[in-house]
């Protein structure tokens, strides 16, 4: 019975069984039961092989067995070939080994990221501290504002004293140093002993304006120094140093390091390739890319950009511009100019 159902019986054996089954009901029942079992076994579905099995096998195929130059399946595949399609499809998810290649790539990526960070740092550091070109836009309007003051011509026409003219001219001519103009104004005041209250008031008014101009410059300087410095120093530095560094350092490194690592490293039976590749690919890349970039990009940038800028921009501005202005220009102006002006100038006008 088994041999007949297995298709292994000879024709003579098959004829013998037919005769037996025709004569014996029990034998027929047994045969029917056995045939039902065969049918049931035939109906058992077989499992599908796991996805990626072909690619895994091909990835780990020993290249030493072959004389073909390429290990990449499908490299010579013809369009429409099932194995080519399958290999192409599966090779995306199942990488092949090659951790040494990956490590070399990671080194190049790390070096590239470090070089990029240095370039970004250097390019962003050129603007620190803000140079004269950065402050011109703030000072020139102040100079223009001062040049249009009516004090000099107005006072001259009404008999302004020489010292007052000198003072006002001094303030007009001196655009860079509030202290020197204030000193000249102060000298002129001393020499004339406030004889001419109008001219004195105007001079002081001019000085006050000078002070304010300087104050404005100081403010501009401060705002330029701080805002630009902050803007250029920190945000650009942060932007260039960190974002680019992060972007280039991490994403490229991750991209190259991990995907290549994954691509190259995992196929090695998921044993050596993935852990080493992941370890070397990500940590080195991260280490070289992010920490150096962060270190160079942010700390130097912060250091050079913010502290110098803060130091040069704000403290000098504060030191030279605001404090002197406050000290000499505004306070005197407040003290002498505005009060005199209030007293004399505005009344006269």
């Amino acid at each position, binding site marked *: 019975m088994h041999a007949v159902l297995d298709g292994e019986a000879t024709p003579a054996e098959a004829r013998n069984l037919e005769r037996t089954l025709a004569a014996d009901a029990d034998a027929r029942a047994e045969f029917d039961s056995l045939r039902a079992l065969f049918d049931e*076994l035939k109906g058992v579905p077989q499992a599908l092989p796991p996805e990626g099995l072909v690619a895994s096998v091909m990835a780990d195929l020993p290249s030493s067995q072959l004389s073909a130059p390429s290990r990449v399946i499908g490299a010579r595949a013809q369009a429409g*070939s099932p194995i*080519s399609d399958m290999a192409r499809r599966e090779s995306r998810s199942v990488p092949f080994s090659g951790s040494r290649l990956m490590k070399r790539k990671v080194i190049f990526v790390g070096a590239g990221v470090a070089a990029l960070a240095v370039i970004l740092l250097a390019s962003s550091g050129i603007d620190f501290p803000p140079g004269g070109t950065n402050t011109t836009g703030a000072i020139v309007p102040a100079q223009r504002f001062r040049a249009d003051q009516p004090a000099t011509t107005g006072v001259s026409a009404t008999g302004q004293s020489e010292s007052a003219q000198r003072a006002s001219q001094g303030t007009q001519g001196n655009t860079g140093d509030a202290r020197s103009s204030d000193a000249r104004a102060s000298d002129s005041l001393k020499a004339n002993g406030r004889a001419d209250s109008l001219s004195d008031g105007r001079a002081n008014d001019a000085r006050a304006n000078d002070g304010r101009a300087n104050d404005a410059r100081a403010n501009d300087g401060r705002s330029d120094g701080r805002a630009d410095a902050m803007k250029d120093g920190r945000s650009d530095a942060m932007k260039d140093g960190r974002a680019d560094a992060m972007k280039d350092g991490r994403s490229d490194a991750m991209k190259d390091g991990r995907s290549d690592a994954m691509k190259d490293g995992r196929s090695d039976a998921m044993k050596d390739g993935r852990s080493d590749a992941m370890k070397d690919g990500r940590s080195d890349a991260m280490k070289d890319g992010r920490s150096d970039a962060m270190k160079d990009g942010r700390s130097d940038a912060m250091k050079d950009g913010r502290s110098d800028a803060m130091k040069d921009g704000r403290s000098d501005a504060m030191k030279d511009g605001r404090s002197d202005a406050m000290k000499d220009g505004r306070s005197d102006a407040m003290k002498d100019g505005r009060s005199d002006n209030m007293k004399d100038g505005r009344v006269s006008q």
Partner: protein
Amino acid sequence: MSNETDAALLARYRAGDQEAFGELVVRYQRPLYNAALWIVRNTEDARDVTQEVFLKVAVRLEDYDHRYKFFSWIYRIAVNESLNLLRRNGREEELDEDVEPPAGDSVNPEWQLGEAQKSGRIRHALMSMSANDRMVLMLRHFSELSYEEIAGILELDEKTVKSRLYEARRRLRELLQDLRTN
């Protein structure tokens, strides 16, 4: 799938054509995977065994005796790898209940349900049998190999194969009878 014979694909592979070996892998991955799965009863182990078999085939290709069929040779490697895995584990692994058979072709849900229940019962019974019983039944009924081919793979004579098949079927019927009554 390519219509080339196994011998032609092997010749291409020996000449350096990797794609030819890929064709062989595509051709035999399913029967080898199922053979391994029926023996080791675990999908992950079956996958590992299948992959290992193909790699061994690639490495030991020079050992292949062309007087025998290629698939008999790789089946033998698969069976030996599976049995080695069972031996290494020291005992038979727990039955992997996650093995999902592919859906049937029929669109009739009731028929599908009945077939699924029937095949599920047989699978359950088969998986509870010994590795030797599973192996011989698998090779005959699922791989549809002849006595001679089974004998070649298991390195037994044909009479022993017939005897083992007879005993395995008897035990399977008993198990199924128990399952029906329970």
